[in-house]
């Protein structure tokens, strides 16, 4: 049987850095192929070559046995390769139909004029393929995150129309922002997709890769280092292949979780309410404690974290730090009270793109490298260099633009930025490992543990339930804007994900 897509010895270099070093793999008809690898392993580059955004330096891509060259994304679409991007790629100010057909409207736009009924009908056809009830005329900004992902999927399915062949659909980290029921919906979608297409599934959640894939390829340092049937693989094996070091069963470093019953209460939240978002939320965080907050989208936990950091005002209730009530009118107040915030929207709220790694590290506490009001560039570079070493930030040097780093390394810069502040006492982690690979995640976990040992109080909104459970001392489950249930999660006797899910939905 001919592979629907085959990649042979693909190589891509960027100014001397080898991103892809002779990658080969194939996708067979109606197969779900898992693709895993650490940050910098070459996954993104490979996907960009497959969708025509980059051109390879060497190697060939075969589509149904025929060699193909993609000069741009339209070429790839014409060959029936569709992609659901990791960072959502919908234009929120226009309709679902316009997004699905964007750039390839075909007959629906003649001589520059829109035929709306036709446009909507074609879009409806794509939505029907994935059995979605979303209306093509809806403006995307009115949709939830999970609904938008379905629109992305419908958009990817649209390549089928232009190509007249069974499509290959690439899902780039589709699960990284989904939880619980939304995940199940996605898996059902992939099963449906398998009937009409072949699928490449890229995810950093190994359990999920194994669950949905038929075969799995492991990428490391720009090569495929392993190929295995999902049925006969296990997580430890994949771990070892990917990371290149022994996988620790203690991925979350649970044994480093210290008891905090005796520690003083650092942060008290009393009856905190933001009208329409959450209400009457009360909890304590002790020094060295991680309080994990679980909840589905709409539970109010995201809003809670933003209010805690002063990014949005509360309607009533109070926040008490070290026994003293505080009032945050803005994040500036929160920072001066010793709060730090690691945002989920890293690219927008976490890093200052265009500034160097070193400049980003000193955004919060510039006084740590200064002569009075002046910068001390030599000291700044020294301290930045120390952080780069300590957090193992992969960057050519301190002066590199932070925007050029991979996601995991950007996140480490954000961590360094806060940790560099001597006043930091409370850390709010809003999806700190979103989009990070296994290795970078583990680094984040080690850091959470280290900071706790030093007495940091941590509020955590984690990416997955496993992460919430493993990292937290105490878990609060939020639903419809209220705390539904509080779980103790001491090391060794943690609650099960199913216990939490029951309270979440």
């Amino acid at each position, binding site marked *: 049987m001919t592979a629907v897509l085959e990649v042979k010895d693909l190589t891509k270099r960027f100014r001397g850095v080898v991103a892809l070093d002779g990658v080969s793999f194939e996708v067979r008809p109606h197969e779900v192929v898992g693709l895993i690898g650490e940050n910098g392993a070459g996954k993104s580059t490979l996907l960009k070559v497959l969708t025509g*955004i980059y051109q390879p330096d060497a190697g060939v891509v075969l589509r149904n046995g025929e060699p193909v060259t993609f000069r741009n994304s339209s070429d790839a679409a014409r060959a029936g390769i569709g992609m659901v991007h990791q960072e959502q790629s919908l*234009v929120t*100010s*226009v309709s679902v139909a316009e997004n699905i057909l964007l750039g390839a409207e075909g007959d629906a736009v003649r001589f520059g004029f829109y035929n709306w009924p036709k446009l909507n009908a074609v879009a409806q056809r794509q939505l029907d393929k994935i059995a979605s009830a979303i209306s093509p005329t809806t403006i995307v900004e*009115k949709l939830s995150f999970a609904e938008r992902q379905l629109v992305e999927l419908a958009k990817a399915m649209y390549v089928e129309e232009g190509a007249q062949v069974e499509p290959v659909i690439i899902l780039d980290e589709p699960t990284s922002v989904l939880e619980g029921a939304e995940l199940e919906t996605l898996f059902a979608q992939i099963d449906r997709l398998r009937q009409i297409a072949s699928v490449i599934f890229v995810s950093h959640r190994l359990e999920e890769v194994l669950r949905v894939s038929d075969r799995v390829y492991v990428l490391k340092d720009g090569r495929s280092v392993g190929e295995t049937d999902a049925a006969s693989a296990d997580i430890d094996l994949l771990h070892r292949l990917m990371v290149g070091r022994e996988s620790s069963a203690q991925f979350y470093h649970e044994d480093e979780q210290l008891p905090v019953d005796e520690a003083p209460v650092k942060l008290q939240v009393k009856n905190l309410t933001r009208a*329409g978002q959450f209400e009457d939320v009360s909890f304590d965080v002790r020094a060295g404690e991680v309080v994990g907050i679980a909840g589905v989208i709409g539970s109010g936990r995201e809003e809670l974290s933003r209010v805690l950091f002063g990014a949005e005002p509360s309607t009533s209730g109070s926040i008490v730090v070290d026994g003293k009530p505080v009032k945050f009118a803005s994040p500036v107040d929160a920072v001066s009270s010793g709060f730090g915030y690691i945002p989920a929207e890293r690219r927008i709220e976490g890093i200052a793109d265009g500034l160097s790694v070193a400049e980003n590290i000193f955004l919060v506490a510039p006084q740590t490298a200064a002569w009075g009001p002046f910068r001390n560039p030599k000291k700044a570079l020294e301290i930045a260099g120390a952080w780069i070493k300590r957090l193992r930030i992969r960057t050519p040097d301190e002066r590199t633009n932070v925007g050029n780093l991979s996601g995991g390394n950007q996140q480490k810069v954000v961590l360094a930025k806060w940790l560099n502040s001597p006043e930091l006492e409370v850390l709010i982690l809003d999806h700190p490992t979103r989009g990070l690979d296994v290795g970078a995640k583990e680094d984040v976990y080690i850091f959470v543990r280290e900071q706790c040992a030093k007495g940091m109080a941590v509020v955590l909104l984690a990416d997955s339930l496993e992460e919430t459970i493993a990292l937290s001392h105490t878990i609060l489950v939020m639903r419809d804007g209220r705390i539904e249930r509080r779980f103790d999660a001491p090391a060794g006797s943690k609650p099960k994900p199913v216990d939490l899910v029951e309270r979440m939905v």
Partner: protein
Amino acid sequence: MTHPPTVDERRLSPRVRRLIADAGPLVALIVLIVVFAVANPVFVSPGNIGILLSQAAVPLVIATGLTFVILLGGIDLSIEGVVATSSLVFALTVANDRNDLALGLFGALLAVLAGSVFGLANGLANVKLGIPSFMATLGLGAVGIGIATVLFAGRSPRVLDSGMRMLGQGSTLGIANIFLIAVLVLVIGWFVQRFTRLGRYGYVIGGDEAVARLSGVRVGRYKIGAFVLGGTASGIAGVLLGSQLGVGMPTIGSGTMFTAITAVVLGGTLLTGGRGGVLRSFVGVLIIVVLANGLILIGVNPYAQVAVQGLVIIAAVVATGWRLRTRVRIIK
């Protein structure tokens, strides 16, 4: 299972709030009209309404074109220069007291075309040379004033073509021609925005340019297209003003840019692009015209009026944009 009452509010309120915000400028317009009508009944007399409509015409034409540029997240600061050049091209190519040309309607079209050429230059400077639209259009606006000054040569050419003067001064069925032309421009603008790729891609590019590029949209073309629409509209405005005043001069467009930009923003088109539209700008234009006219009728000191107008506009923008202030965001 008891759900807190906030649930329903939360699900509904964003939609309701968006509706209110969408309708905000229209509500503001109605309130202004009612207030002025009560304060001085002359405000709603047929005579005054006629004045209002003809005052709205030129700003409406300019704001319609400008909306396309602002939807992209760009700005057009060349308006007054383009209007000036266009008015002089118009005055010097129709029957006039300076030369023997008498091209009539063809002269008017040449003047509009001059506007389009400026728009094209704005677009090329922005897209091909990579100059921010703020700087590119500011520069080309000065070029427009310069060309107009050269053509002006110290004395205003007077328009002698009576047909062409009717464009700006005559009326049809009791409605000023100038307003009818403006409404025609608005309708064309609305059609372009709703039914053409140029219009739709304006929303896409203004909403997320990176996504547009990745989807294979030739972004540069559509940007240039939007600037051409903006320049053309300014060209039309130059013809209308030249026809109305019967002369061409470099300062003929003074103040039109302030009115047009505020009208677009007041109407609810975001300066960051992606959201808004020409009909909203129409509402914005009416608010400004009603305000200027109403303030005179209720007896605000004419010398203080510009300042009062400015303050009211800032208040209106704050009122319509207040809901966007809850999140941390950067205002450049």
